[in-house]
């Protein structure tokens, strides 16, 4: 069985669903206020804009470029699918297009590689990364956003 088949999958809520639908198409998009006077990005997705109160939103395309804001290397005890790949990295990536939007993810050697496919010694805060998309779960039910080290 592929290492990505037994990971926990997002349980998607109504507000978050578009993020995952775009990810399945290979697009990294972030929710933004659609009020012309505002337009602020927000994450995680929610029903209305905390800046202006508008309930109109759109999903704005990001370049997929980011920097590592922080990271951890989890060790067991862990859930079985993760313990098999431990120690692995979990990172928080700030988007170059929107530095205060930070996405959790993993730095991997290629989109569908194991979570431990990059030597943790290669990770550092501030390192540039690029989004890739990895189908996960039964029949690729959900597409996870992961990250490659640039260069």
């Amino acid at each position: 069985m592929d290492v990505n088949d037994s990971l926990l999958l997002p349980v998607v809520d109504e507000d978050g669903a578009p993020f995952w639908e775009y990810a399945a198409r290979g697009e990294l998009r972030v929710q933004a206020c659609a009020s012309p006077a505002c337009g602020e990005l927000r994450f995680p997705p929610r029903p209305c804009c905390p800046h202006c109160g508008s309930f109109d939103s759109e999903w704005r395309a990001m370049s997929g470029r980011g920097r590592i804001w922080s990271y951890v290397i989890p060790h067991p005890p862990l859930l079985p699918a993760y313990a098999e790949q431990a120690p692995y990295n979990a990172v928080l990536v700030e988007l170059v297009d929107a530095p205060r939007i930070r996405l959790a993810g993993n730095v991997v050697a290629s989109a569908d590689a194991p979570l431990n496919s990059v030597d943790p010694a290669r990770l550092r805060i501030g390192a540039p990364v690029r989004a890739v998309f990895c189908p996960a779960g039964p029949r690729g039910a959900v597409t996870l956003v992961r990250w490659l080290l640039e260069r």
Partner: protein
Amino acid sequence: MATLKDATAIAGIGQTAFARRLPESEKTLACRAILVALDDAGIAPSEVDGFASYTMEETDEVEVAKAIGAGDVTFFSKVGYGGGGSCATLGHLAAAVATGQASVGVAWRSRKRGSGPRPWKNTAVQLPTPAQWTRPYGLLRPADEIGMLARRYMHAYGATRDHLFNVALACRNRANQNPDAIMYDRPLTREMYMTSRWISEPLCLFDNCLETDGALACVIVSAKRARDCRQKPVYLHSVAQGLPAQHHGMVNYWNDDPLTGPAWTAARQLWKHADFGPDDIHVAQIYDAFTPLVPLSLEGYGFCGRGEGGAFTEGGALETGGRLPLNTGGGGLSEAYVHGFNLITEGVKQLRGTSTAQVPDAATCLVTAGEGVPTSAVLLRN
């Protein structure tokens, strides 16, 4: 304006044994701790008419009330966000007693986390939002979530593992003085800390609290009544809750500044209603589910400046005789992790003068609840 300042007091405290595994149920342990606390105060169970607890408490007030033989109950509340609610239970009861909604209030915590299930293993309840943004990537446990903030904090301010060790050591040293602590006869050395196994780098085994079975309780009455009770009153001088703007729970990664957590919000409210400030605190009980929460809280509650929490721990500042003796029963790291309620009862012991690591003439104590989640805090004085 009406104020809660010194209007109510803690008249009784109680606890069960702490252990990795206790044979009795959570409900039984809760009842034992509450009855000990009422006896400590010299108040009959039938006089209890108020209850306050916080979420992740499995024993409901209806169970406790009928088991201990409470009378008609006229006030009850449950505060959200697990360990962030410990001190808030005191605030809710203080408000209820001060406004006449109840006369004898009981707050408690009973847990079997040493021998029972751990919530992060229950994937069904963990996965709905906001976990959809973190759990699939293997950010599974609170240690992973706080480790992320800890690494950023260390990077931003030059805090080191030695600073985290200072926190773990202060708690362990106090536990070594406390026969009720799980780590009573188990000293910690720097070598043990530095060579222990990782849990979630940069956090090692000794950066994590102890999973514990046990229960605690305290009894709150009006200040006037407390003066006629069996024990010296410990007054609730100021209480506060804190849920900062744009905060997002333990994975607080999405606001402008994730390193200024709920402590900052609770602290502003707490000091606003107090007659004294951080420099006047004689002893502190700061929520220590993980060591990095202590430097973050020291900054939030105003004991030092932003980014100075690591350096504050140097030179024995957190030890007996230091600038701010910390978690004098051993805390969650070395006495017992009972969602912070043992920090409250230890604060009471300090002001009664009965702690196993007594700070001479301690007259003021800060107690805080879980940091990283929406939190609460209380200033105790005698």
